[in-house]
């Protein structure tokens, strides 16, 4: 008897839910909300075993499922979970449930379609995290775009079409490059081993010429950097967030952005470590610019959602910095920051949504003195804000400190530059909080607002609990992610060494500038490298110790 296909069930259940919702009568919003909640909750319950069933002694992939998918291409339906993806899947299922419940009041047109799309999106996100076959990964990665695009385009604000198209084009532009790179990898592998496969584990074993790595890495990295988003690819984010409905913003910020950083951890860095090391100075500088720039620009935003959006650019800069420290503390800090950002920024968007539902404005200038009519709301906001600015005792601090420690040990000035972000985040957050919450109530329509309802309190309770739990006792989370992060790091190091010892079988002067497909056709991998590759390899020390 085969074991229960847990991971497939995780992907299928939301799809079943989405289908079921579409079969329901069109105008029964109440029933739609109830059933959407039931499915999202069931999905969360189904994902919870990932927390305790994960074998901490095994850094590799677990609960693996592997079946033929498109045998002609060697593509397989290959799923697996490790310490990295399990936490991200848990984050996804939790935040989807909260987004579903949080949207009860906000969405009243085409409710059925809205929730169906949200659940479809969940399936896509989970599939992306669980795929171990690159073609399958790419399928989910792209599939995810559609529901998000529709959520923004159909339920968004005034400029929703512009924002939706912008979101789609940006992401698409990166994805196309990635697809080409995936195909190139496929052919490299086939010519090296004779096996046609898109399997990630196979690619992990594949030696790749340093010169080819540069192009492959760039293609993957651009796709992921847009998603992160790294400066200067970030401009789609403020627009998408401002126009998206609350639930869309929550998912976008909490989960979709993590796809980018996850892509670096899972694919870009371990597959192409030599190229990754070559580009480290660039990426780190962009991450640092992101930290500063996002914070400074967030400071002067008149719109709450834009402020949170730009703060994401700053926070994700920390994640990228942690990854490129390339040491255990940096990796763990980055991974923790991914979860932290999901929790705190997800909560921030939910909080902005709460006030938007009541006042139909998000402009800071329209508020002031909200603490008086909304003490519970303001207190929750305060705790979330403290998590976002990394106050010790909250989750944000643990992640931020580990990132800084990792960065410092690799290159002290990186940490020094990034630590300025600690000051800046306090500036933009506290100033916003002061203008929204403190002072006298400046507008009569704000005097009689209703405080958080029972349903809303239920939404925020788990987030607040996580903020404190992960701040006070982060070790259970660290214990889960570390073996897999160590494996990813070790893989990157080993592969970098492999590339450093790269010897071109035959010295073809084909050079590094060949376009991917041509390079592939010309020599398929090893031979394509040539002397130029050896030069690159010697110029770039393999991996940062």
């Amino acid at each position: 008897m085969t074991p229960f296909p847990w991971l497939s069930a995780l992907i299928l259940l939301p799809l079943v839910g989405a289908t079921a919702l579409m079969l329901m009568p069109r105008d029964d919003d109440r029933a739609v909300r109830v059933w959407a909640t039931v499915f999202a909750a069931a999905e969360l319950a189904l994902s919870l075993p990932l927390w305790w069933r994960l074998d901490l002694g095994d850094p590799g992939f677990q609960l693996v499922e592997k079946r033929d998918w498109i045998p002609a291409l060697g593509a397989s339906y290959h799923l697996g979970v490790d310490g990295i993806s399990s936490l991200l899947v848990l984050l996804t299922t939790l935040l989807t449930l909260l987004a579903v419940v949080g949207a009860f009041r906000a969405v009243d047109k085409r409710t059925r379609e809205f929730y169906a799309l949200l659940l479809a999106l969940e399936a896509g996100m989970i599939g992306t995290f669980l795929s171990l076959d690159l073609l399958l990964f790419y399928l989910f990665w792209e599939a995810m775009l559609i529901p998000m695009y529709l959520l923004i385009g159909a339920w968004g604000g005034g400029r929703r079409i512009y924002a939706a198209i912008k979101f789609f084009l940006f992401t698409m532009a990166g994805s196309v490059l990635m697809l080409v790179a995936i195909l190139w990898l496929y052919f490299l592998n086939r010519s090296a081993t004779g096996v046609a496969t898109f399997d990630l584990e196979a690619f992990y074993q594949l030696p790749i010429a340093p010169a080819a790595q540069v192009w492959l890495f760039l293609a993957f990295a651009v796709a992921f950097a847009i998603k992160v988003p790294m400066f200067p690819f970030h401009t789609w984010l403020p627009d998408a967030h401002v126009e998206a409905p609350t639930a869309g913003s929550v998912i976008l910020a909490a989960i979709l952005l993590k796809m980018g950083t996850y892509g670096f951890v899972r694919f870009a860095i371990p597959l192409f470590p030599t190229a990754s090391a070559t580009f480290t100075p660039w990426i780190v500088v962009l991450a640092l610019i992101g930290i500063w720039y996002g914070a400074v620009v967030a400071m002067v935003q008149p719109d709450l959602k834009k402020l949170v959006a730009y703060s994401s650019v700053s926070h994700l800069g920390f994640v990228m910095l942690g990854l490129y420290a390339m040491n255990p503390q940096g990796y763990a800090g980055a991974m923790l920051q991914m979860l932290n950002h999901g929790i705190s920024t997800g909560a921030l968007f939910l909080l902005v949504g709460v006030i938007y539902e009541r006042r139909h404005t998000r402009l800071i200038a329209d508020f002031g003195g909200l603490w008086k009519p909304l003490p519970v709301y303001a207190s929750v906001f305060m705790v979330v804000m403290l998590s976002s600015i990394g106050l010790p005792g909250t989750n944000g601090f643990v992640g931020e400190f580990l990132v800084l420690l990792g960065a410092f040990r690799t290159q002290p000035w990186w940490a020094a530059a990034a630590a300025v972000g600690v000051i800046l985040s306090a500036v933009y957050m506290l100033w916003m909080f002061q203008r929204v919450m403190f002072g006298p109530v400046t507008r009569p329509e704000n005097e009689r607002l209703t405080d958080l309802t029972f349903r809303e309190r239920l939404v925020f309770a788990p987030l607040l609990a996580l903020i404190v739990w992960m701040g006070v006792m982060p070790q259970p989370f660290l214990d889960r992610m570390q073996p897999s992060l160590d494996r990813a790091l070790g893989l990157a190091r080993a592969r970098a060494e492999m590339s450093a010892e790269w010897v071109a079988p035959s010295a073809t002067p084909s050079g590094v500038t060949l376009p991917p497909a041509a390079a592939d056709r010309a020599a398929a991998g090893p031979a394509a490298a040539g002397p130029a590759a050896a030069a690159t390899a010697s110029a770039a020390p393999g991996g940062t110790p």
Partner: protein
Amino acid sequence: MNLPLLWIIPALPIAAVALNLLVGDRLGRRGIAWLACGAVGLAFLAAVRAALTLAALPEGERQVVETAYTWMRVGDFSIQVAFLLDPLSTVMALVVTGVGFLIHVYSVGYMAHDPSYRRFFLYLNLFMFAMLTLVLADNLLLMFVGWEGVGLCSYLLIGFWYERPSAAEAGKKAFIVNRIGDFGVILGMLMLFTYGGSLQYERLFAMAPHVFALGGGLITGAMLLMFLGATGKSAQLPLYTWLPDAMEGPTPVSALIHAATMVTAGVYLVARCHVLFELAPVALQTVAVIGAATALFAATIGIAQNDIKRVLAYSTVSQLGYMFLACGVGAFGAAIFHLMTHAFFKALLFLGAGSVIHALSDEQDLRRMGGLASRLPWTHATMLTATLAISGIPPFAGFFSKDEILHGAFASGHHVIWLVGLIGAALTAFYMFRLYVLCFRGPSRVTPEAAHHLHESPPTMIVPLVVLAALSVVGGWVGLPLLAGGHPFERWLAPSVESAAGAHGEAAAHAMSAGGAWLLMALSVAVALAGIALAVRAYLQDPEIAGRLRERLRVVHAVVFHKYWVDEIYDALVVSPIYRLSRWLWRVWDVKVVDGTVNGVGFTFEGVSAVLRLFQTGFVGTYALIFTIGVAVLLYHFLRG
């Protein structure tokens, strides 16, 4: 022993916070008051018990570590949630819980009519938790939890009356200025861990002399960064500007956080890390210079302020300067001694000021006080005690600690710093007696309606005043050279703060002749008396003098009255440029340049995408189908080619 010795101390106030959050709305005012004061009172008893336990140990073994759990462990980086009891943390815990308890009791009366009673005690208990974590932590990172935690509570309590825009502004300013300092602490910790190998005190201090060269760049840099944090938290130059504004908070908060406990955290940090500072003489010298400069600078501003709480705020900045001065010249024991006596008399001064403000229906301007001695007898008597104590008149507490600091500075050869301290002492006596005279003596300048409601404070407020007054008298006696075989306080503290350099300073001190020591003592008393005499003469006997002086020294008066325009300078040099840069980056750079470029490309694609959109039905299935066909075509192309 059944009860845990250490973690129970911070656990009590945080438990009260949790209870207050959960059932506070059902407790009523009395219940909340009992809960909050009870928790802190018990924490004080727990601290006493811990102190007795420690005192029972032989002198060389007075160090107890209690580990709760592993906070984080990544690779070779591991941090425990662990608490340390040694002579230094014992003193700190006793001062924090003791003075804290008295101020909690005082607040019961002071805040009696405030609608946000529950929130006030919630924050106050949270503060006690953070402060106790700070002083009892066994490693720098856990200390930092308390460090930023007290900063948070300070922010919340300064902005307690959040409807007042000035209060909200002051709270934010305090937090941000402190964060600038915390930036230093974070980087300092990163350096200490990376090069020193640990953040746990004992291991770090044991390792440091072996890994850091004496006076080396790394340790100097790390300690200067740590000291940057101390200047933020303890309101020293150049990061002191938040503290005077912090007076927007309720007066018990000013007494507890902005006088007795939180602002001394920087001094505690320097004393705690004295082993490291002694490895970095340049950093230590900086501490001394900054401390002395701040002591003098803030004292001059204190002379010309009219708000009773602001005078006290600048006085606090100045007195903290003395503590850093002491640390900087190696007299760490004297610094902690002054920290303790200052906690007594400055808390008393603030609480007394609060009693005056309370009696005058929230009047804080010294120009509308006067002649209150007979109307507020208890407040007057206790305030006078504290004023004498801070002025350094024997046998009050401040005399002993301040004298020891000046003595330490002189004996260790820092003669200029000693002189600055001496001038500061004269100024201290002057501005404190100016405050005293303007408030309690002379003719009444109280407004009629305030005079109508004038009343002495209730017992919950008076009792803490009396206790603190008693401590302001006898608190210094533990430092009497003659008592119990010579300076019991310093001997108690010695294992925590003494080291090679300290012993060296000690030797130098002893090398000074007894006659010299007496001379120094007489000198500091003399300048204090001179300051008092001048203040009494200029503000009581012949008020004309003050006016004439002000006239003659118009420029000087304008400079100190406007606090050297430091806030305005910071605003022009730092705050506005950053704000303008932010706006430009957003409006021009982000929207026009970055986004514009991308959109230029985007519009080209828009036509294409309009067509493409027809294929997007929204069904993943259709999409996957089209996608698969696409891939197949691509593959066909590749395979054929």
